[in-house]
């Protein structure tokens, strides 16, 4: 290495020192929170015993994983988790982009801020409060829908918490209602960064609104969409525990459509379950998530290299 090159390198490191410093708190946090507990993963393969501690406890191979797969529920909970997450991903992205575009086109700054706040509001509400809001609408005896809509119109009241067919729609709707406002912020920020010159030029050349959207807006949003999707894919085996546990009010009758991996693990291990089994469930979820993220990234790499994350 020549003197000049070395000098250049030190210069570069020096140049970036402030940035490294700025990154430090986040890196330290990441290390403490995400990397330090990692050796604890061995718990998934052990029968935990307090006396011997995490590392001294006896190995049990894959026995802790059995409870997830031996039952007939394994298929139902896996299907629910994946299908709901896919629905959330697809509808969530479409609605968030739609909302972002509509918000972006509003000229009055004040109105824009007002609308944005209103659709962001549900994201801020605790899921427990949401569960009671939903209950206020759906309850059989005292619910709004049964008392003020079904009864005056002469329909039989519906026991929402006892009927499975409504819940797939309800849960997807609630997830959208809650998260669209937050997700659209990402897209809104991107839209603001697009040079209006492109649109003006396209309009001059006679491009329709749809053409302007599909040829200009979408390509600009692509990197964000891909990043957000890859992140979501990594979490496809995790479910929004609050949404699936609190909102259906733990009604057992709804389990075939509301039970996900997280709630199943919770119910199964609540009564004196083993630490090993819960660790195993978490290990399984993160493993599948990791593989899926890698797979998605490989696909993105093949389709459009410049948009891949790594």
């Amino acid at each position, binding site marked *: 290495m020549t003197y000049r090159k070395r000098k250049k390198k030190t210069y570069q490191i020096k140049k970036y020192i402030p940035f490294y410093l700025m990154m430090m708190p986040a890196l330290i946090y990441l290390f403490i929170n995400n990397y330090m507990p990692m050796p604890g993963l061995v718990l998934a393969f052990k*029968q935990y015993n307090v006396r011997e501690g995490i590392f001294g406890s006896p190995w049990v191979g894959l026995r802790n994983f059995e409870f997830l797969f031996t039952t007939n529920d394994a298929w139902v909970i896996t299907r629910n988790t994946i299908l709901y997450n896919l629905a959330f991903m697809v509808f969530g992205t479409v609605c968030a982009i739609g909302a972002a575009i509509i918000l972006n086109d509003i000229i009055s700054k004040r109105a824009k801020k007002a609308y944005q706040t209103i659709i962001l509001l549900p994201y801020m509400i605790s899921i427990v409060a949401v569960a009671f809001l939903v209950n206020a609408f759906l309850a059989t005896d005292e619910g709004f829908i049964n008392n003020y809509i079904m009864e005056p119109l002469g329909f039989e009241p519906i026991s929402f918490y006892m009927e499975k067919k409504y819940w797939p729609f309800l849960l997807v709707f609630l997830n959208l209602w809650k998260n669209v406002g937050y997700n659209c912020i990402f897209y809104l920020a991107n839209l603001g960064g697009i040079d209006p010159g492109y649109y003006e030029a396209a309009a001059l050349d006679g491009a329709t609104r749809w053409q302007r959207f599909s040829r200009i807006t979408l390509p600009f949003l692509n990197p964000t969409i891909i990043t957000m999707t890859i992140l979501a894919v990594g979490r496809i085996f995790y479910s*929004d525990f609050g949404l699936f546990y609190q909102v259906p009010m733990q009604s057992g009758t709804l389990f075939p459509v509301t039970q996900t991996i997280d709630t199943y693990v919770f*119910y199964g291990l*609540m*009564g004196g379950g083993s630490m090993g089994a819960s660790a195993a469930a978490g290990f399984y979820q993160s493993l599948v998530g990791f593989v899926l993220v890698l797979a998605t990234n490989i696909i993105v790499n093949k389709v459009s290299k410049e948009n891949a994350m790594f």
Partner: protein
Amino acid sequence: MKRKICSLLLCVAMAVGLLAGCGDGNGDSAGDISGDNDNQESGNDSDSADDKTDSEEIITINMCTFGWGNVSDYKLVQDAINEISREEIGVEVNLTMLDVSQWVEQQSLLMSGSEPIDLLYSSGSIATGVSQGTWMELDDLYEEYGQGIAQELDQEFLEASRINGHIYGIPCQGEFANARTIAYRKDIVEELGLDVSNVKTLDDWVPIMEAVKEAYPDMDGFATNSGSSQAQWLGYNWDSLTDNFGVLMDYGAEATVVNVYETEEYENLVRTMRAWYEAGYVAKDTATETESINSLLGAGRVFSTIGTGKPGDEEESTNGAGVPIGHIDLTEALSVTTNITGEMWGITSWSEEPEAAMKFLNLMYSNEEVATLLNYGIEGVHYSVQEDGSFNYLEGQDITSCTYHPQILMFWPNSFIGGFWDGDDPNCPEETKVFNEEARKSIALGFSYDNANVINEVAACQNVVQQYQIALDAGAVDVDTVLPEFRQALKDAGIDKIIAEKQSQLDDWMAQKGE
């Protein structure tokens, strides 16, 4: 996911808080020790030395439990107790009292060995912690330092709490049996002039509910599930053998483990509930009710529910609900293992001062002053003594403003000694002892089963129960279609394997007992 992160953060914050709390306590008491050693020495000069010598240092132990009510002044109580325990046994305690809601979340963390705790309350069957290695074997310690406990506690029940022949915890003094009852609004029954003295079964209850329904159309006659996701008909007149997956029917008369959900008794129960649901006695939303039964009763939304019968049950329920509550026994009182192992005090296996912890546990069990402090706090600060000897709030204080009032005392090692509260029956301890003796004993009393070999099946069955039982118990679903589904789902989840495992463990236990 947000919830998870949030709860994780809370856990961490809690743990840090706990550690910090322990640290502070240690610091304080370390300061105390040096100061008090002088006193002690001078005391020892004049007094004859008791069982401790001059050179002996005062040992501090860590103890953790919770309170149902407001216990924010527990550090004051701790200091008052230390005054006594330092003199008596040369031990000081560093007490941590959590809120009941925190306790539910914290218990498994406390039991996992990460906290410096010596003496810990155990709720739920102690067998879980034993198989995980949380609890220390206490046989020798009890032999040496447990004389006060031995005097207070009926030995039959201590024997029944043994697991694999060892003592792992000391049962809290209290009722070691209970009956299933109907708990109802006594004031309403009196107001309407109804006669409930002839009610012996669930069917007898129907005319009463009908009369209440006419007078109070907005009040639901009966609630089966509320504020908890636990199914309510757990252990009716059978020994549920911890978890109801395989039980001993007919008050545990014979040592044959059967599947309760296949029995006629269970089917009759859910059919009755279905009939009540269809007749409009049970609230339509009862299966998803999240309000606690006490607030439902207190607010007049529900007239009656399933209760637990024992001496003092009416006073306890009335205190809880804030309205007069009566109990009618549906079954005889039955004593099963979890009645004893469900509320215990144990010493952790990682405790560095097990002897001091045992001495202190013995003190809590047998010293009236210490028990009074634990139960009601400090006289003149948290309560005053009335003319009849009962305790009450200070002038101008009540349940919310009193800064130390754990409300329900069954979690203390011995709440039978050390005063009684205004309105409580002072004879309750005596009555409870008689009640314990007279209760029917399951043949498996003293048998604790270890589910380690069938943990996968238990987890699967728990999910099935969650799916079907609450709705069935509440009468919210059709019995003819759902009950067979429920039974099949349990079979698929492996209930037969659990039953076989239980039966073989029970047979072994019976054989050992016979020897």
